[in-house]
């Protein structure tokens, strides 16, 4: 951790207009929860739809995408990353610091609101809300690491990330069972299943597989991002 890198990253992330989109996510989730509560539908079914499909399935990856790419891709894009890199700082330290900021922000903006929305909708019964929250914490961290890596790898990180989240996870993942094994969202869901009372949350991917893949993706993406960052090339005049 480097406090200067953390401070610059956090200010860059929240100091721009991006913060409005980011704040819209928790607000949306809470508004939906309040409305749903008064709809009189089955509470468990509602919890699955709002916490599972909407929050874990859509809002967590979108927040992870905006935050994960936002902590580094913007600086690479406009060239100001030079001021971080032209320093005797180990590259892995820059990456892990930015990752900590990204994970913290993703949790704050998606996992915490998910927990609050869950309490409003369903309360603490059957550990369903706790399960979804832990799932969101785990997948939020994995998304942050994955999308931070994308930000280092490509100038089109947001598009690549959207393609992964929308096409792979949401579209292909909902039809092809094999694709679900390689889906961050499903790993989060596996944790939710493991924590919630038996039979309340169903996940297609086994807990062991999910845990291993979460660790591999988190650690692997961070290590690879560090390697790529130390070989970052400035585009020339040519």
């Amino acid at each position, binding site marked *: 951790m480097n406090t*200067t890198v953390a*401070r610059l990253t956090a200010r*860059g992330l929240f100091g721009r207009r991006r913060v409005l989109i980011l704040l819209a996510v928790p607000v949306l989730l809470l508004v939906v929860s309040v409305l749903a509560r008064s709809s009189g539908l089955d509470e468990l079914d509602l919890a699955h739809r709002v916490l599972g499909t909407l929050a874990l399935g859509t809002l967590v990856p979108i927040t992870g995408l905006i935050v994960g790419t936002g902590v580094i891709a913007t600086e690479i894009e406009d*060239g100001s990353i*030079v*001021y971080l890199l032209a320093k005797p*700082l180990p590259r892995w330290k820059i990456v892990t610091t930015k990752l900590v900021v990204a994970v913290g922000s993703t949790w704050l903006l998606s996992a915490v609101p998910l927990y609050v929305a869950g309490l409003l909708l369903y309360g603490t019964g059957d550990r369903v809300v706790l399960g979804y929250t832990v799932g969101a914490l785990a997948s939020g961290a994995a998304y942050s690491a994955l999308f931070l890596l994308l930000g280092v790898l490509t100038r089109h990180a947001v598009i690549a990330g959207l393609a992964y989240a929308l096409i792979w996870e949401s579209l292909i993942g909902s039809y092809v069972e094999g694709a679900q094994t390689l889906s961050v969202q499903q790993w989060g869901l596996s944790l939710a299943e493991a924590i919630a009372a038996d039979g309340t949350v169903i996940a297609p991917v086994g807990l062991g597989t999910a845990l291993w893949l979460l660790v591999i993706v988190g650690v692997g993406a961070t290590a690879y991002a560090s390697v790529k960052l*130390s070989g970052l090339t400035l585009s020339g005049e040519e």
Partner: protein
Amino acid sequence: MAVITIDKVSRWFGNVVAVNDVTMTIGPGITGLLGPNGAGKSTLIHMMSGFLAPSAGAVTLDGARIWRNQEVYREIGLVPEKESMYDYLTGWEFVLANAELHGLADPGAAAERALALVEMGYAQDRHTGTYSKGMKQRVKMASALVHDPSVLLLDEPFNGMDPRQRLHLMELLRRFGADGRTVLFSSHILEEVEQLARHIEVVVAGRHAASGDFREIRRLMTDRPHRYLVRSSDDRQLASALIADGSTAGIEFDASEKALRIQAVDFQGFTTLLPRVARAAGIRLYTVSPADESLESVFSYLVSS
């Protein structure tokens, strides 16, 4: 003594060779890296500052490889060409952050010293996004100087500066050169380079075209044959009068342009000869224009010599 050595370095991007087998040594004092746009100056500076790997050859600082070696930044200060620099920070916050990132013992004092050096203390509490080009350049300088480096690399530092800011920056760089630091800056403007640098390295189309004292290079540039396009009241008579003098190497009558194309051997001699000859022969001169004064033609002459 901080010395950057570029040893048989080439850099290509796909099929395009940006830097072609360049060998040069940059030592203490001010060195100007001169060349037309697209000659490979930025590519060279990116390799010297560790932001680009050479495709072949080696770039070292006092024997240590620069690429993928972040320890060199204890010695190197870089002023990049791009302007973006955390617009949401004030000048003070920006320079202070740079001092902290260097791990300096007293970053506050270092930032204060660097801002005073570039005379930006008065605007240090404004956001860098509100700065003029010259002010940004100075704050970038302060951020590069904050750790008191022995090498300073500047990519086109005078671009977009007004004359006053230009003089101020030149003065600053002169001071660093006089301190025995290694200062390298790039430019595509000869006058800029020769005002500041005693030692000049010229690159043209990725190749190392000339190296040495600016007087030597200036002489090469002014002694080359000059070409002029001249229109007068009697072109043929003027031609015959001019060819008799030794400072004219060749004259061609261009019928389509209705003008003379004159190749002069001696720049000084020809410019005094032409009006004298014309007046003596009672010929009026309508057009006298240098035909190849573009920087590119000056540089390509240097390459061929």
